[in-house]
Each structure stands twice: as C-alpha cells, then as structure tokens.
C-alpha cells in the first residue's frame, strides 16, 4: 500500500535455458564467445533453412512447469511472432501463442508475515534474438547473432503481487528454483534472466487500475526500483485528477525513471500464426510424469525443512538455500555426522561464504564435508574453541590433513582446566588495571575486552565460557 493505494504487479520472466545446444539448430549455447562465431545458416535465418526442435528445451520447460505446479499441455504447438528488428534474422521469433507448454500454476513465496501464493498464468518456450552492438569507431549499429536461437522460457505471473517486496520475493524464488532444477544459469549480468513488469494502482475496494508495462528491467533490484517508481508515478497522476494511459514504458535504471515507449494504439500487431516448419509438440504422458519425479527438493521446501529439522532461523536457512552449492555442502556435512547444524550454518555463512564470494568454489579447496563435520563437532564438543577452529579451518581449506593431528601438533586443544585459566586471568587483570577500574565504575563492556585479552594470551585455546566466568568471579570478588 502506498499513499492509500494498492499496487498490483504482474511479471514476465524470461530465463535462458542452459541446454548444450540452441533451440532450433546444433550451435553451441554459450555466453561470452567472440561475436558471430556461434552461428550457422539456421540460426542466422538464411533463406531455405528450417528449424528442428531441441527436445531438451521441452523437458527443461516441463520441469519448470512442475516446479510451479502447472498443468502441462502434452500436446501443444509453436507459433511465429512477426516483427522487424535487425537482431531478429528471420524477422519472426518462434514462440508459443495460444497453447503454451505449461499453464495455470502457482508459486508460494515466503514473506515475513507468512506464505503468499502467486498465480502463474503460463510458461512457454521460445528463441532468443541477437544483440545490437554500438561502437564509436563505426557509424551505425553492428549485430552479434550468437544469442539468436538460445532457448528461453517465458514465465508469466498473474497480477497477484501487491508491491515491490512481493515481486522481489517472487523473482528470487523463481531464480532459486531455476538453479535448483538446473535449467538456467540465472546470470543477470549476462542477461540470462530478464523481466518485464506490469504495474497498476487502485484504491482498496475499487477495480484494478490501468496497467503499464515496463521493459528493460535488467536486475531484481531494478525491478524493485521500477515498480516503486511506476506506482508512485501513477498515484501522482490519479491524485492530480488525471488518468493513467495504457502504454509500454522503458525503465531507465541509471536515471531511475520510466519513459513512454509506445501507447496502446501503437501496440505492435505480431500477427501470430502456427509455425508451419515445425510439428505439433507431443510429449508422452510417461515422460511428463518421469520429469516430475526427477525434480529435486525445491528451495522453499528446503528452507522450511532447515527450520524444522535443524532449528535454523529463517534468514539463515534462506541464505544457505539461496546458493545451491552451500545447501548441498550443508546437507553433506549433516550426512557426514555433523552434530550441530546451527554451528555449521554459521561456518557456511561466515568463512565458507567469504571464500566463495571471492570466487573460490568449495571443490577448489581441500575442504570436504567429512572434515567440516568433524571440525564443527570438535567445537561443539568443547574440544577446541571457535577461535582455534578458525586456525584449523584455514589449514584444512588448504591442506588435506587430519584435524586431530593438527590440534595435537600445535597444542591447540581447548584449555578448560581451572588452574591454568586462573593463572591467565590473574596475569591479564594485573596488566589492565584501567579496564578493571572501568568495569568496577559500571562500564560493563570492559568485561569483553578483558576476556578477549585472556583468549589472546591463551592463543585462543582457552574455553571462552569458562574464562568469562573466572574473570567475572575475580572482578566481582
């Protein structure tokens, strides 16, 4: 709700599928290669060439259909969407019009205040277009056709989202599912997932307002900014007594504004008709069922399970589940006998995320689930402190070594022995008279400093809980 208006959002998400080859020819489907090298007469639309459907594309789309609880149209067709643009070599895009491969599904997204169900109108398959390139060295535009014929699915939601927060949650969940069922690389910066946004506003209790479609939304955060901007723009118009025109607008993320592209009257007539070069798609019932069975546990279910089964907080669970590799590692560690899922999640979201964010994959290190589970168990059993754990972690990331022997060799076992800890405490308290005085005058955060100094003096081996108790006793005494 913004200024007493309800905001209605519908989304069209285009996701490039990560099949080995393109949708209608044998060219490699890969990003970032030299311009116009991943092309053949077919994806260049040369006269006389014909498309043949890559069946993997149908399988991938059906998987997504199952993940979004859709009805699968086992029998469907492909259609031509006709329009002229230099990046579209045939001057038509092969897509699906009235009978999409999947339809009438939904997606439950987890919001702070509970689960929100968002309807999915349809999922259809289509081919991507090329890309225009501009260079100062050249008067005019250049075309890179590498992306022509890259397979896409378009996921069209119902207008069920009520603001940018729900849209964001929806987009993130869609992205997560795409990654879990491994049908898209979901790399925003490579354009492998893009969206068009439909926004309208209305007063509660009144019918839906006129919607505007926004194109060129290239990131999820841009979607949030765009929706908020567009809702406010429409509200301002209505508040000033005006009416919203149905139109297509272009989001300019740098300027943070949307600008009109074309009005409803100028809407393009795509003259859809059935693609005569391709046969009706007929997927055997068994295959549809088989594809459903091969679906992995989906991210939302995983988040719920991590909460219930392992007692993780929702945001921790969500952060682990958000990255397939983290979640997989988490589960492997549990399988390897890790006794403290909570502690494990801290390590994954802390140290492991740190090196992953720097671009190092877990497989690129010496870290195994077995080692990680063992390390967490050492800590949770109180055999080593977290600080020592960090030292051990840094070693087992780089070297394939036995944890117990590292601890032995370096004498890192946690010290819980009272007399040893007392000696350290006495030493530190004597050396930090000012802090002791501070504490006694009521500056309680001096305690943390003193315990920290003790830990340091013990080279991290002291049991921090026991250490704290001793210091407290001595200060209080």
């Amino acid at each position, binding site marked *: 709700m913004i200024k007493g208006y309800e905001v209605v959002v519908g989304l069209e998400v285009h996701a490039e599928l990560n099949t080995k080859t393109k949708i209608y020819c044998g060219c490699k489907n890969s990003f970032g290669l030299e311009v116009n090298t991943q092309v053949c*007469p077919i994806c*260049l*639309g*040369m*006269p*006389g*060439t*014909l*498309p*043949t*459907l890559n069946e993997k594309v149908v399988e991938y789309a059906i998987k997504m259909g199952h993940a979004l609880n859709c009805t699968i149209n086992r029998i469907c067709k492909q259609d*031509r969407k*006709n329009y*002229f643009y*230099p990046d579209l*070599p*045939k*001057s*038509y895009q092969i897509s699906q019009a009235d009978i999409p491969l999947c339809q009438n599904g939904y997606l439950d997204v987890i919001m702070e205040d509970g689960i929100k169900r968002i309807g999915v109108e349809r999922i259809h398959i289509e081919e991507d277009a090329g890309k225009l390139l501009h260079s100062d060295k050249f008067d005019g535009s250049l*075309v890179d056709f590498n992306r022509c014929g890259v397979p896409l699915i378009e996921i069209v939601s119902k207008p069920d989202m009520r603001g940018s927060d729900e849209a964001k949650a929806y987009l993130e969940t869609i992205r997560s599912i795409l990654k879990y069922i491994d049908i898209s690389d979901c790399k925003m910066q490579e354009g492998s997932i893009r969206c068009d946004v439909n926004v309208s506003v209305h007063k509660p209790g009144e019918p839906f307002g006129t919607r505007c479609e926004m194109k060129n939304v290239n990131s999820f955060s841009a979607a949030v900014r765009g929706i908020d901007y567009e809702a406010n723009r429409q509200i301002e118009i209505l508040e000033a007594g005006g009416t919203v025109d149905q139109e297509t607008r272009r989001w300019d993320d740098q300027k943070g504004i949307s600008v009109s592209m074309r009005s409803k009257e100028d809407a393009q*007539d795509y*003259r*859809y*008709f059935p693609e*005569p*070069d*391709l*046969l009706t798609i007929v997927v055997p019932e068994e295959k549809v069922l088989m594809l459903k069975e091969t679906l992995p546990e989906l991210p939302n279910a995983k988040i719920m399970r991590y909460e219930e089964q392992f007692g993780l907080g929702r945001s921790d669970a969500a952060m682990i589940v958000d990255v397939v590799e983290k979640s997989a590692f988490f589960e492997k560690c549990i399988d390897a006998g890790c006794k403290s899922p909570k502690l494990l999640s801290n390590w994954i979201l802390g140290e492991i995320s740190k090196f992953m964010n720097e671009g190092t994959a877990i497989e690129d290190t010496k870290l195994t689930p077995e080692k990680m589970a063992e390390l967490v168990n050492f800590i949770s059993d109180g055999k080593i402190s977290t600080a020592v754990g960090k030292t051990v972690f840094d070693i087992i990331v780089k070297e394939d070594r036995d944890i117990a022997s590292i601890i032995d060799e370096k004498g890192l076992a946690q010290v819980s022995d009272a007399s040893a800890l007392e000696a350290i405490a006495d030493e530190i308290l004597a050396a930090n008279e000012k802090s002791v005085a501070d504490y006694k005058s009521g500056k309680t955060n001096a305690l943390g400093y003193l315990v920290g100094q003790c830990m340091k003096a013990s080279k991290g081996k002291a049991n921090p809980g026991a250490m704290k108790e001793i210091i407290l006793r001595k200060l209080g005494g």
Partner: protein
Amino acid sequence: MNLYEYPAYELSEMLKSKKISSVELTKDIIKRTEEVDGRVSAYLKTDPEMSLEAAKNADQLIASGKAESKLAGIPVGVKDNISTKGIATTCASKMLENYVPVFNATVVDKLTEAGCVISGKLNMDEFAMGSSTETSYFKKTKNPFDLSCVPGGSSGGSAAAVSCGEAVIALGSDTGGSIRQPASLCGVVGLKPTYGRVSRYGLVAFASSLDQIGSFGRCVKDVALLTDEISGHDPMDATSVNMNYPSLYDNLSSDITGLRIGIPSEYFGEGIKPEVADSVMNAVKALENKGAKVIPISLPSTKYALSAYYIIACAEASSNLARFDGVKYGYRAKDCDGLTDMYEKTRSEGFGREVKRRIMLGTFVLSSGYFDAYYKKAKLLQKRIQQEFADAFKTVDSIITPTSPSEAFKIGDKISDPLAMYAADICTVTVNIAGLPGLSVPCGYSEAGLPYGMQIIGRKFDEQTVLNLGYAHELAFGGFRRPKI
C-alpha cells in the same frame, strides 16, 4: 538422335555400358543450351566449366564401379529457389540478385552425391509466385512450343528446359501447381510428391506448409528415377516424413487392371476449356480400356479451394519473406534515413509487384481483427478439403482431372489481371492443400500444337499408383512430342 534428346533412364544405361561419357553428354546439353536458350531463356545461370568438371568426376565414379545411382553422370537443371552452395540462388528476384548460399539444399546434396551434373539454375516466377514465369525480375522464359506463349509457372524455366532439351531432367518446386501447370503447358511430365516425401531444407520458402520439391522429365520413368533420388526423411526438415520409400522406378508397372479412377465433376465444368476436358476424358477412356474402372465422384468444396489457398499461402509468405530486410544479405536500398526507411525502401525496391501484392495480402489476413475471418476460416476449409479427398480415396485409388484449365496463354495476356492468373491454378491448388501427390502428363494438343495436361492425384505417399497410371497412359497415348525449336 542427339544425346540431349534421350531420356535419362536410357542415358543411364549408355553411361553404365560406357557407350557414352558424362562429359560427352554434358557437352551436348551445353551445346543445345547455347543453341536455344537465347530464344527460350530457361536458365538464369549456367557454368559450363563447373558442369564439365562435375561430369569428369561422374565419369570417374562410373569407371570406378562405385556409382550406385542410375542418375550418375546425368545433367539435372535446378530451379533457382533451391539453394546451391557457392552458386547464386536468386529466386528470380532483385532482392537476391547477388545472394550466394553457403550451403546446399538437401536435394542438391543428394544429387551431387549420386554423381549428377548440375546443368544450371532455372528461371521461375519471383519467389515462386506466379503461373507464367513472367514475374521473374531477370527474364521471361518462353514456351518451346510457341515462343510467344508462357511456359507456365512458377517452375517455367524447369519445364521449358526439359521440354527443349536444355536439361535431361530438372527439379522444380510446387506450392499450388508450380510443377504440374508448367509441365502441362510445356508438354512434359511433372510430379509434385506428397508433402513430407522430399526434404524442403534449402528450398527458399514461399508457403512452408504447401511447398514441395519435385521432378520434371520427358517421360514417367525419368520422373520416377529423379523422385527416387530425392525422396527420404531428412533430420534437417521436421516436416519430412520418416518412413520407407521403396523405389518408384523399380516398381513402375503399366498394369492398371482393377484400379479405380475417380472423376470429380467439379474439375470438368466452369472455367475449364472444353477441349482440355475432352482430351483428359479421352485419355481416361484409354485407361478404362486397359482395365481401370472409372467412377464419377464429387469434391464439393473445390470451389472454395482457390480462396483458401491464396489466404494460407500468402499468410505464410508474408512471414517467410520478412527476412529479406536488407540487414544481412541481398539487396539493400541506398540513401536511407534510418532503420525504418531502410526497411521500407529495401522491400519496396527489392520485391516485384506480385510478391508485394502477396505479402500485403498475407499481412492483412494475419492482422489482429482479421485473423479469425480469413486465416482461421481458410484453415477450416483446408480441413474440409482434406476430408473430402480422404473420403473419396475410400472408393477410388486415384483421381484424374485436367492440370490446367487451358493450354499455354500468350505472354502478357494475364500479367495485369491477377485474378485471371490465379485461376490458372484452379485444378492444382487442392492437391497442395490436401498434401497429396499429383502428376501431370501430356494428354493432347491444341490445333495450334500446344500441349494439354492431365493431372493424376493419389493417396498420401502413393506416388506408385499415380506413376503407374501415368506410365500406362504414356504407353497408350504415345511418348513425348518434341517442340520444333
């Protein structure tokens, strides 16, 4: 008799027994072409050096005993909408005047592998749109029987070349009659195979759901031979049908005893010249005398076929020809002011009148608000026509009609009257709409000596029955009559 006058199946024996070489034969075709093509204008492009090189290779192939195909060493003409790697494929359009494909059509690959010699690229109506070969941007092909008459179209170059000996056999394409009608007008044999029998890969599309590549020859045997060579499933063409294609040539038989021939009244009435209808009925009587049964039938939706055909064909054409936009290859207009201007000028200048007319018609019938009234209705009619044929084939084995409502007309007679031109397809379009095989064989001559043609239609993939009837007819009627040129 000159070598160029022999049928392919005899030349094949002569080549095999080394009585002649492919080089000798090819030289004779080149010589004949030099003699008559100035008057007939069948070819858009010949490359004698390249052809002779191919002939030399064919001779080696035959000498090595590795030639499996009966067509090894035989010169074949190719319609200019069939892609030939490294050889301009213009579709007789200014738009593609300088377009050279980087790949071969599947049929060209098949012929090349068989050891055929490509004798050149043949003239046609621009983008196969027309029934007279007059819409070619480059030249008008003449009918070898009367140089003031059209050869028919759109495969007019193929029909004329085979008719006057500039090619032994030739490939054409047929979307609404473009093989059968010119075959009829030029007194040769032409077969449009069942949709899906021959790969369309590399055929520059006019109407994808109706286009089919097929064969021209001066006799049924030659057409059977060439059709055998190009038939077969192609993984590059999703609409090509994966099944067994037994040799039509090997199974050719003139025994037609008991075959039931349907005569649909709708194809013999209004719009058909009585002399043409009579000559077809005379040929049917001859077949009856050879043991066939003649059964009158009715195909009542025929009267809607032309409308349905032009809607579907133009709709698909408007989309298929959209790729010719000046961006990637082909013609691009000079001095353009921005992208839209470039598109408009390029397409206005690059396409001829008939092509633009059909693109506009097709764009209209697909437009929002008109789609249901035109395209959807036409598709419903298509279903009905298909059903009528399917029902008819429950009681007959074949259907015989005239191929063209009249003999060849004068050049210029119909070019300014599109509807009169479209009516030239009245007997042939239903066969494409229903996806059936259709053969045209010469069955008579006008007083002025211009050929009439008879169309024999069969069940899907039953080219054998169609060709057998054609063969029996040919034996009864007499073989190819050479034009005096």
